[in-house]
């Protein structure tokens, strides 16, 4: 039995170049194990088994021959990556809602919706009052009188 530290022990089968170790899935959730192992798929062949509620058994089969130091390095890197993934998951969970809010505010509010644009057009048109509906009839009558007078003046000058 090899050890990286007291929390992380592993067994090495030299014949088939395979490392076997156990991961406490109460400390390291399955999602973090997936994320961590994904980053090692180019270096090792990974196989997982066990009881996800309690403990995962991980088998790392090496793609090429390594010495003892390289082996311990690899396992140490994986252990560090597990810790990194746990921290990432915590940060992510703590900030999920706020990130959703930020993206929706930043992108949605910058692009007016088609409905908003149509409403704005209608409002603008209404404000212009093309049919003169908002104008009181007395004003309209006075305006009509004024324009009659001015056209008479023009005719007499001619």
């Amino acid at each position, binding site marked *: 039995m090899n050890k990286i530290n007291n929390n992380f022990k592993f067994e090495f089968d030299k014949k088939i170049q395979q490392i076997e170790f156990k991961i406490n899935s109460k400390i390291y959730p399955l999602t973090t194990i*997936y*994320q961590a192992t*994904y980053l090692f*798929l180019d270096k090792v*062949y*990974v*196989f*997982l*088994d*066990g009881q996800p509620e309690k403990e995962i058994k991980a088998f790392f089969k090496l793609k090429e021959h390594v010495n003892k130091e390289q082996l311990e390095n690899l396992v140490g890197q994986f252990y560090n990556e597990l810790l990194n993934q746990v921290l990432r998951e915590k940060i992510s969970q703590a900030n999920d809602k706020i990130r959703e809010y930020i993206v929706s505010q930043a992108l949605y509010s910058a692009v007016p919706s088609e409905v908003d644009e149509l409403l704005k057009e209608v409002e603008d048109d209404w404000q212009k009052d093309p049919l003169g509906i908002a104008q009181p009839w007395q004003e309209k009558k006075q305006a009509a009188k004024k324009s009659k007078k001015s056209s008479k003046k023009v005719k007499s000058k001619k």
Partner: protein
Amino acid sequence: MRIIKFNKKIYRPEAIKQAINDFKNLANFKLKENSDYIEIKINKIDQDYKDILKDEFANYALGLMS
């Protein structure tokens, strides 16, 4: 022939089936499912990959889980 037993609580059946589909040109795959495991029997493996196909297949299936 190579045999792999995938724990259903760890490996999603859809990921295994996707992997079988993506590897279908390299070998024959037979799938058998029970309550806890999906057993895959691999035979007629392409000569060029006979030493590594089982492990590559398992890696690929795990990659599809992420």
